[in-house]
C-alpha cells in the first residue's frame, strides 16, 4: 500500500525531518499514517483509541526522530512501528483503568466484550471480540512478526504470558470463525 509514498521518503527528507523541518516531518507523517493507523486500529478496541495512538505516535516520532540512528532499508518503518505498538500497549493498559473507574461509577458493564453467542463471525469481527491483550499479542506476533521475547519485553510480562495469550487468541478465533472441527 504505502510503497510509493515510502519510496518517495528519501534520505534527504529524513535528514531534514531530523533537523526539525515541519514540511519534512509532515512528509514522514504522510508516508506512515496508514501504516501506523492500521497497526493501532488492529490492536486497539475502538477507532477513537487508534486515532489517539496515531497522534501520540507521531508526536513522539517528530520529537525523537533526531535521535533515530537507523540506516538500513526498513529501519525507519521498524522504529516507527515500535513506537506505535508501544503507545498502543500503553493505551490498552490505560483503558483497563478507565474501565475500572466506569465500573465503579455506574455499577458495571462487565462481560460486554466476550459476548460470542455461537455466531460465526468474519475475521475482523472475531478479532474485535478478543480481549485487548490477546488481540495485541496475536497481531504483534502473527502479523508484525515480533517474537514472544520482544512482545514480553514491550508488555513488561513473561515469554510464557505472551505464548499463552497467543494460544488463547487462536483458540477463540478458531471457535468464532466456526472452525470447530472433528479434532
Amino acid at each position, binding site marked *: 500500500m504505502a510503497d510509493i509514498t515510502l519510496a518517495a521518503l528519501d534520505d534527504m527528507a529524513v535528514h531534514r525531518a531530523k533537523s526539525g523541518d515541519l514540511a519534512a516531518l509532515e512528509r514522514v507523517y504522510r508516508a506512515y499514517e496508514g501504516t501506523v493507523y*492500521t497497526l493501532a486500529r488492529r490492536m486497539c478496541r475502538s477507532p477513537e483509541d*487508534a486515532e489517539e495512538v496515531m*497522534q501520540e505516535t507521531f*508526536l513522539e516520532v517528530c520529537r525523537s526522530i533526531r535521535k533515530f540512528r537507523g540506516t538500513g532499508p526498513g529501519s525507519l518503518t521498524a522504529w516507527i512501528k515500535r513506537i506505535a505498538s508501544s503507545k498502543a500497549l500503553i493505551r490498552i493498559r490505560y483503558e483497563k483503568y*478507565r474501565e475500572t473507574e466506569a465500573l465503579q461509577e455506574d455499577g458495571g458493564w462487565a462481560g460486554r466484550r466476550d459476548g460470542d453467542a455461537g455466531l460465526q463471525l468474519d475475521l475482523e469481527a472475531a478479532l474485535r471480540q478478543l480481549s485487548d491483550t490477546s488481540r495485541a499479542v496475536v497481531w504483534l506476533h502473527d*502479523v508484525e512478526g515480533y517474537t514472544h521475547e520482544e512482545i514480553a519485553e514491550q*508488555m513488561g510480562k513473561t515469554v510464557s504470558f505472551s505464548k499463552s495469550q497467543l494460544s488463547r487468541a487462536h*483458540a477463540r478465533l*478458531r471457535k468464532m470463525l466456526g472452525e470447530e472441527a472433528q479434532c
Partner: protein
Amino acid sequence: MLRHCTIAELLDLRGGEGSAAVRTHVDECDACRAELDRLHQRVAALKALPSLTPPRDRWPVVRDALTRSRRRRWQRAGGAALAAAAALALMVGIPGVRGAGPDIAIAQEVDELKRESHQLEQVLHEVEQERRVVNGMVLTVIVDLEDRIAVIDAGIATVQTAGPVTAQLRDLWEERVILVNQLVATHVQPAAYAGH
C-alpha cells in the same frame, strides 16, 4: 503421543519449537495436520486484512502540539524572568494579564487532563513496580522526565493558587500528561526512548 495436539503445541511447532513427539504425531495424524493447516490459513488471513485509512487528518493537531511545545521550550530558555513576572502579575491580579478569564471550556479541558494524568500515574505506578534493571542512559532520561514533571507541578501549584482556571493552567496540565506518558513509555520500553 496418544492424544491430539493442543493449540499451544501446534503454535510451538509452527514457531520451530515443537517437540519430536508432537512432530511425529502431526506427521501421522490427519486431524492434527488439518488443524495446523487451519492455523496457517488463519494467520495468512490475518496478514491479508486490508490496510486502513485514518478517518481524520491528525497532522494539524500534531503540528500544533509540536509548535506549542517548541514555543514553550524557547520561552523557558529565554524568558524565565518574564515568566516569573507574569506569574507575579497573575497573583497580584493585574487586570488584563489573565486574558479571557475563567472559561468553562478550558475548565472542562483541565478536568479531562487531570483525570488523564491521574490514570497515567496509576499505570506508571504499576510499571514501576514490575520494572527490572535499567541502564545509566535510561536512568538519565527517567530522572530528567521526573525533574521536568516536578517543575510543571510547581507551576501548576502557583497558577492554581492564583485564582480561576486559565489557558496557562490547561497548557501546564497538557504538558504534564505528555511527560508522564513519556515516563511510562520509558519504563515500559527503555530501548526505544533512550537507546537510539
